[in-house]
């Protein structure tokens, strides 16, 4: 039973409200740099918008979803009132305060450095401090997840930790540790320069610190989606989880190998040597493993649901699936986008192939497909699934929900497929506009136009999503009952200690980070003469 419904609702509403704002900015950006728009007289407006879009979509929106969902999981999976509710609210308000503090200088054009920071570009210190406050707020959540699990373990010695909570806590630890990279970059390097204590900065070292955060943060965004795959979808469509053990192994693998791989973002960089580039490339291949395992387990779980509903045949069972169930639809869309996005990801992490598409529009296409597509569509599904339990009211119009999901899927495909294509043609990312009159760029015009149309399809779907949630607050009351998670085919009576605790895996995560990052960071930090003068943004 969810006792702190207001807390979860506050996180979700704030998450989706800022998502709506950032989505609108995104659609505007797609338009303005397409042949449909006219060139901005002031291109700085584009980068202002892009900084806001990236900061909100990367740091604020998914963090709030993970937190709200995490609190809901803690209360419902453990069947225990949340411990530390006041702290949870403090974390929430820190995020509100941090977001406002960061967004004011961005809106004023004082921090158009994009969400990746990349010094020696330096913006207003309030922007960076605001981002730090958002992260600190989320760390309160990490601590609360850990404490709540500990309290439950004390009351239930030896019992298997429910899968949803096990995964939720793994995701929170992953976030706590991956945020350290950007935190070090901000606290040791950027903020001292932004407030004027120092005038120079090592741009190469900063990029390595940021890569520490930049890749594993993606898996932090992904964890709520994977929890939905395992712990919600089978229940919602009337099936069972094929294997509880494999699910735990998948989340453990994410925790351990998502971290020490971030340097595949720096293949094109001059400050990292070949050895560590190869090591990080090989480890990135390893992170495909938990996804491959998940695809198997979820397909098998879905098949169970289909066969229970009378489906038969080698592939014929797919017809028996409850396709009118929004959760089924969202899962199918998510998997299609995960498949394409994952295949693209294997190209990005490849030691050799990356140089064909590095920093082109292919990359933007890739992470919009994975994050905006495969991940966010499951955030929608999570909200739809939880909403009646949070509001005590039911959705009456399932057709509208299905329309929203279809629009998001179609919009994302129309947006990202041409985006990948122009990337292969060599179109660089993050430009305010392009000269489509240039014969060398003209062939990309049609693809960029399609992307912009896709962007507006996504905006339509996003608005529809907010309307559905708002209407859901006023629809007929319903007794939604306790919020439950999927059961496994063979529900475990006991679980080996290694699959029931996180300590060993957290130690391994930290150890691998040190072996894969320690030497490069140390050598860069000790190399003299690589600090360069800061270039202040917005000072002109």
């Amino acid at each position, binding site marked *: 039973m969810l006792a702190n419904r207001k807390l979860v609702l506050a996180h979700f509403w704030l998450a989706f409200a800022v998502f709506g704002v950032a989505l609108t900015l995104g659609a505007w950006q797609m338009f303005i740099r397409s042949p449909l728009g006219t060139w901005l007289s002031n*291109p700085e407006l*584009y*980068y202002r918008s892009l900084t806001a879009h990236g900061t909100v979509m990367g740091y604020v929106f998914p963090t709030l979803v993970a937190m709200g969902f995490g609190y809901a999981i803690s209360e419902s999976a453990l069947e225990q009132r949340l411990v530390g509710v006041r702290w949870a609210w403090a974390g929430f308000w820190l995020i509100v305060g941090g977001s406002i503090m960061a967004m004011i200088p961005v809106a004023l054009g004082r921090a*158009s450095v994009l969400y*990746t920071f*990349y010094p*020696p*570009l330096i913006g207003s210190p309030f922007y960076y401090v605001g981002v730090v406050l958002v992260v600190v707020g989320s760390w309160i959540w990490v601590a609360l997840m850990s404490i709540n699990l500990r309290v439950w373990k004390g009351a239930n010695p030896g019992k298997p930790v429910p899968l949803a909570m096990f995964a939720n806590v793994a995701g929170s630890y992953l976030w706590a540790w991956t945020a350290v990279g950007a935190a070090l970059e901000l606290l040791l390097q950027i903020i001292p320069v932004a407030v004027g204590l120092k005038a120079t900065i*090592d*741009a*190469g070292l900063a*990029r390595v610190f940021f890569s520490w955060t930049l890749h594993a943060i993606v898996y932090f965004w992904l964890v709520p989606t994977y929890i939905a795959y395992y712990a919600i979808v089978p229940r919602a469509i009337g*099936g069972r989880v*094929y*294997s509880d053990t*494999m699910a735990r192994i998948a989340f453990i693998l994410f925790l351990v190998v998502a971290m020490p791989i971030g340097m595949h973002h*720096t*293949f*094109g*960089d*001059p*400050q*990292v*040597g*070949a050895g560590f*580039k*190869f090591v990080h*490339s*090989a480890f990135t*291949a390893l992170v*495909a*493993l938990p996804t*491959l*395992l998940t695809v*198997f387990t979820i397909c*098998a779980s879905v098949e*169970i649901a289909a*066969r*229970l509903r009378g489906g038969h045949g080698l592939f014929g069972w797919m017809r028996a699936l409850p396709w009118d169930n929004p959760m089924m639809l969202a899962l199918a869309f998510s998997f299609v986008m995960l498949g394409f996005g994952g295949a693209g990801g294997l190209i990005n992490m*490849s*030691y050799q192939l990356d*140089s*064909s598409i*590095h*920093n082109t529009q292919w990359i933007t296409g890739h992470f919009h497909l994975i994050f905006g597509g495969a991940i966010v569509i499951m955030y929608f599904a999570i909200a739809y699934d939880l909403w009646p339990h949070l509001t005590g009211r039911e959705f009456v119009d399932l057709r509208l929900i299905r329309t929203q999901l279809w629009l998001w899927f179609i919009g994302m495909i129309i947006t990202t497929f041409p985006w990948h294509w122009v990337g292969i*043609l*060599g179109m*660089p*990312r*993050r*430009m305010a506009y392009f000269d489509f009159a240039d014969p*060398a760029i003209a062939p990309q015009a049609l693809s960029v136009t399609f992307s912009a149309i896709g962007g507006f399809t996504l905006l339509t779907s996003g608005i529809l999503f907010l309307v559905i949630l708002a209407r859901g607050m006023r629809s007929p009351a319903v007794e939604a009952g306790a919020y439950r998670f999927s059961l496994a*085919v063979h529900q475990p009576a006991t679980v080996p200690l290694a699959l029931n605790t996180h300590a060993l895996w957290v130690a391994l995560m930290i150890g691998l980070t040190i072996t894969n990052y320690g030497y490069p960071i140390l*050598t860069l930090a000790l190399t003299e*003469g*690589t600090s*360069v*003068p800061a*270039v202040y*943004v917005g000072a002109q």
Partner: protein
Amino acid sequence: MSAQDTGHQGAEIARRTERRWATLSVIIIVAMAVIAAIAGIHRATMPQARVETTDPSRLHLSGEFVESNLGSVLESNGAVTVRAIGQQYSFTPACLLVPAETPITLRATSADVVHGILIQGTNINTMLVPGYVSEQLMRFERTGDYLMPCQEFCSFGHEGMWGKVRVIDKAKFAELAKSSGRLSCVGQ
């Protein structure tokens, strides 16, 4: 198989199927890493291997990136070295002149913020990070003009930072190289 089948046998079959899939997944991943390693070692296709530093505040005063040393030079062994710098919001030289069918080494760095060099229609792609020297080996088979945009956000003029690469006939390049020291196609 169904959810009611909770017997020992069902669990065993499930485990075996699962193990087979996991093995296959591991094989795929190991194969990918091995292919990358072979391509890297045997064919020397890999990202930049060595870390070299340079002081960006003294680039214009001394060393290999002084203005008079930027551009293309024909080395005694027949190979070509191209030196360039990126700064907000242009490349120097803005047009690189290189011969076709010749091994070329591009050496470049940034004079201010992070930039990137991307030559469209090729896989030549590197970051320019101030304080460090980027090196890329390249070879063009066909003559012609290629666009060379900056591929990393470098502040408000980023969208205007486009350079060019002009690939000319090998003999013609050798001819030009005789008369002057550092070649480029700026202003042509």
